[in-house]
């Protein structure tokens, strides 16, 4: 079990994360927050790239900083900005990382064959990666993260560059992998985690805002999400009184999904909230700020 115990991280006077407490056992965890919320800082602490300013991270009761290379042997990591040697082929690059991970050569070669097949790159296994598309590179990244059959798999924005078919394949793969390991998936794309995560962790104002199953988190706004159709000319006034989640044109009217704490009007239909509704509602200030930019 991986335990984050009262962890804070500061850079000089700037506090990036404040008193984070989390527990991870086998399963998929979706770390969900907008860009700049501190997801990558938390991920970097979990991968020992940086250490907490306060608190500790324990794996099976021992501080991961003390475990050092023994912890890193259990770790699979896909960074947000995945770097690779352009002149290497996927096979060479995976062999290189296998050696750095301290794996036996025979095991590495066998594992590379399996993984390249799994990420559908067996046809280009010996081609130089400099000519690869973004999606192909990302699949190499996913393969390298799984190379040592890690007990803790940490993926930072793993679906960037993948097409819809690859995303589905990837999600299914993660669900299967999570049976006997911890999979932590950091993303700001709700659909990446909605179907596979056992638990969602939402970070806001440098702290953990929610941690729980999707159903538990959706309950936070239960009874507040509605849909209605209104003429376009009323849209501006209507949106001033509610928090709009999504809008689309339907039969000449504007069909709007929104959150309101007011007493519902007869034309409003209450709907079951989903994770995206919670995400949009929780981070409404951040989203408005970034769209204003």
């Amino acid at each position, binding site marked *: 079990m991986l335990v984050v115990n009262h962890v804070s991280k500061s850079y000089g006077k700037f506090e990036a994360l404040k008193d984070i407490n989390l527990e991870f056992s086998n399963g998929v965890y979706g770390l969900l927050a907008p860009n700049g919320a501190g997801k990558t800082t938390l991920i970097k602490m979990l991968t020992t*790239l*940086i250490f907490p300013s306060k608190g500790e991270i324990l794996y099976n009761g021992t501080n991961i900083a003390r475990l050092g290379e023994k912890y890193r042997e259990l770790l699979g990591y896909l960074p947000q900005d995945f770097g690779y040697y352009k002149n290497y082929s996927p096979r060479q690059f995976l062999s290189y990382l296998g050696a750095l*991970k301290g794996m036996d050569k025979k095991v590495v070669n066998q594992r590379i064959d399996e993984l390249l097949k799994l990420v559908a790159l067996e046809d280009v296994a010996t081609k130089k990666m400099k000519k690869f598309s973004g999606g192909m590179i990302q699949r190499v990244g996913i393969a390298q993260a799984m190379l040592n059959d890690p007990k803790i798999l940490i993926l930072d924005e793993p679906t960037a560059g993948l097409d819809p078919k690859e995303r589905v394949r990837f999600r299914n793969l993660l669900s299967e992998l999570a049976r006997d390991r911890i999979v932590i998936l950091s993303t700001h794309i709700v659909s990446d985690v909605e179907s596979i995560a056992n638990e969602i962790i939402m970070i806001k104002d440098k702290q953990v805002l929610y941690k729980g199953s999707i159903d538990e988190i959706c309950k936070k706004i239960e009874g507040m999400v509605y849909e209605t159709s209104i003429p376009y000319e009323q849209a501006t006034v209507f949106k001033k009184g509610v928090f709009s989640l999504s809008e689309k044109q339907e039969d000449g009217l504007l069909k709007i999904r929104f959150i309101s704490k007011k007493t519902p009007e007869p034309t409003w239909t209450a709907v079951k909230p989903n994770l995206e509704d919670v995400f949009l509602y929780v981070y409404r200030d951040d989203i408005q700020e970034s769209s204003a930019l």
Partner: protein
Amino acid sequence: MNKEKFKVDFPSDEDIARQISFIVKEGLPKKETFFKQVYTMYRQLGFQFLFPNSIEIAFISILIATFLFITGLQARDYFEAEPGSVYTFIFVTSPLLYLTICSLSLYHIWDNRTYELEMTCKYDFFQLTAVRMLAFSIFCFAVNIVFIIAMVNSYHHISFVKAFLISTTGLFLFSTLTLLVLMNNKSKIIKISLLVGWIAVNLFAFIWSKNFYMLVLNKISVSMYAVVTTSLVILYINHLQKMMQFRKTEGVA
């Protein structure tokens, strides 16, 4: 009244000693020596993965060595007119190859953005860099010796021992400084300044007060050079050792 006598099943002294030694052994795994660690890494990674850009390194080494040999052998008029200046040349250029291949190796990692990934592996960036720097310094040391032999054969007024010690001092002074900056300074500007500053500072010192600079370099006795060189080599190995362990306690980024 007869009191029942309790017998506590207490382990023997030998048992206690054995258990303590087992706990200590498990709790404090035996530290490998630096050279054993280097050897283990070489066995695990092999030459190809320890030096992923070995072709570039070989190419740049040939270029630098050719430049050194041509410049050193072509500047005969100047070196003969100013007998001490050849030692200045040897001192300033001694870490040139080391500087270039270290920069190339670090640039390779920076350019390919593999730093984060390599930091999360069993053998991390600092361990790899320590082994690479050790190998580069040995390689540069060998190239410098060949260069000095060529210079001694060409200029008969040069003392091999003095030239060798000056060259080794220059090489290990620069390499130790590089290690210190890499480990203790996070500012990229300072790191880059060191890489380009060595030649600039020496040239400036040479131009600013040629006599003083040459006096310092030429009047130091051979035995003093030997002491300085030995100290620098020990300091260098010591810091490479620290670099191997660096990540375990310090963290990065």
